């Protein structure tokens, strides 16, 4: 533990000296303001314009009303079509994050404990799959999961089914696409989490007579709790906004909110409604993030309290 803590403390010490003003006479904070100004302009003006737009009714052909109205938001909250879209997006994202944690954590754990060049090689392979533009991956998935694809050839060849199993152009296909999209980053993040859990902790548990399963559930997972939740949250956020996977593996039949946003604005030119959809999606994701982080902090304090008892 002590060996692990030292570099962190050095980092913090270096950072603290970093922040002492005027030691070399350079006013570094002046560098901040151009970046703040540019980022502020790129964030605030477009977003404000967009939210303002969501408060206007669509008149067709890209025209919006002059009068302010909340009808776009009211429609999202009452029309079953939109409610279904939000529900679909939400449960696909939760399923993706949950499945990602379920397979991603053991994989990251194995990677961290194997160590050495094997782990580095595998980790960089995994990372590389997420750095290549997602469209290549989706074409591959279409070939694997399609009606005449690799899996169906095996299924039909072994006579497991009389007809090809439908795995794309439905929610299952989108789910697989989302897992492919989020899993590499999740594993990289979880790998970092596992690395902060000292092996000596596991050894101590084993010496005290804990089985591997008990060590996993009572030592490793509780220590990784914050990392698990934050990685899960990142996968959830990525899935909530995922557009390309939903289109190419949903075949236009799986209408998640990001797909609807693009259709509403580009195809139907209903700008007000598209803006309201977008604002609601971002707001919903934000609220869920706040709730999970609040839960994380509350739970953390409770656990510390229990330990003190």
């Amino acid at each position, binding site marked *: 533990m002590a060996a692990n803590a030292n570099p962190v403390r050095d980092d913090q010490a270096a950072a603290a000296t970093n922040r002492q003003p005027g030691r070399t006479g350079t006013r570094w904070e002046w560098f901040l303001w151009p970046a703040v100004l540019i980022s502020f302009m790129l964030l605030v003006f477009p977003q404000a314009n967009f939210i303002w737009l969501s408060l206007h009714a669509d008149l067709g052909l890209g025209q919006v009303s002059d009068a302010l109205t909340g009808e776009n938001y009211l429609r999202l909250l009452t029309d079953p079509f939109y409610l279904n879209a939000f529900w679909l997006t939400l449960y696909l994202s939760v399923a993706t994050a949950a499945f990602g944690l379920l397979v991603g954590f053991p994989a990251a754990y194995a990677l961290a404990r194997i160590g050495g060049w094997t782990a580095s090689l595998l980790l960089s392979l995994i990372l590389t799959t997420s750095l*290549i533009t997602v469209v290549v991956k989706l074409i591959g998935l279409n070939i694997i999961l399609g009606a005449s694809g690799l899996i169906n050839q095996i299924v039909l060849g072994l006579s497991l089914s009389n007809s090809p199993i439908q795995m794309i152009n439905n929610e299952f296909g989108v789910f697989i696409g989302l897992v492919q999209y989020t899993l590499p980053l999740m594993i990289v993040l979880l790998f970092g989490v596992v690395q902060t859990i000292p092996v000596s902790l596991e050894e101590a548990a084993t010496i005290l007579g804990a089985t591997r399963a008990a060590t996993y559930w009572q030592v490793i997972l509780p220590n990784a709790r914050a990392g698990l939740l934050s990685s899960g949250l990142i996968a959830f956020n990525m899935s909530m906004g995922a557009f390309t996977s939903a289109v190419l593996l949903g075949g236009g039949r799986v209408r998640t909110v*990001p797909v609807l946003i693009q259709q509403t604005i580009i195809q139907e030119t209903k700008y007000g409604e598209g803006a309201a959809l977008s604002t609601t999606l971002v707001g919903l994701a934000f609220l869920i993030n706040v709730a999970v982080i609040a839960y994380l902090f509350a739970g953390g304090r409770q656990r510390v309290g229990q330990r003190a008892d």
Partner: protein
Amino acid sequence: MRTERDWTGRAVSKTILCAVVVFLLAPFIVVVGASFDSATEYHVTFPPRGFSLAGYETIPFKYALAGGISLIVAVAVAIVSTLIGLCAALGLVRGNVIGREVFQSFFRLPVQIPFVVTGAVFLQFYYQLDAATGVNLLNGFLGLIVAHIFVAVPYSIGAIASVLTRFNPALEEAAQSLGATGWATFWQVTFPFIRPGVMAGMFYAFIVSFGDIPVALFLVSGERTTLPVEIFQDMQFDFRPSILAVSTLIAVLSLIAIVGVQRLLGFDMIVPAQKR
């Protein structure tokens, strides 16, 4: 007894790891394999039924054009967002800033907004800008570059700041006490130390721009567009074997570039740390 339990416990997680690696690599292997298929019909099969380079010979010129556009856009985005990121990171890490955490959260906001929404937001903003000032960012690719910079800056800041926090200012003091000027100190002491972070930031900004589909789908209309969008459109409406050939070329070139960057910067530099 203990070794036996160890073995089964580790075996489960190792099996999952193998399955995950196969699962993640499979789409690329299938695309590369199918691109050499001799079939000419409009659906593809894997494993290939015969070897052929037909897919490569029939690559339409529009893909090369789109690839060039993507490259120019991504390079412009990488340079500008790295400059902004360098300024922000220097100010955040070295500066005497009140409310540092507020600024950090502020700079991270673009990552929280889905790409589709960013595309829609900038499309509407450019309409308004055109109506109000006559500046039309929807002609050409300047509008796309600006929107990509918005998305890429947080990645540049993260990469540079994580290296900058490890820099020891005593080195600067040493340089200055030996008579170096402020600029000389920065370029000869500070910058060489943070250069890997700057390059990693540039690399990530490039990747964000080059891989994007949703933002470009909103902001670039008409005949000419970026390579991923071109493939995305053809994938939906006009599938042909040359798409597989182009995808294979993208995957192979990306792999070479990523391996090159890893060699140059070290693997740790391009692994996203949690604090980013």
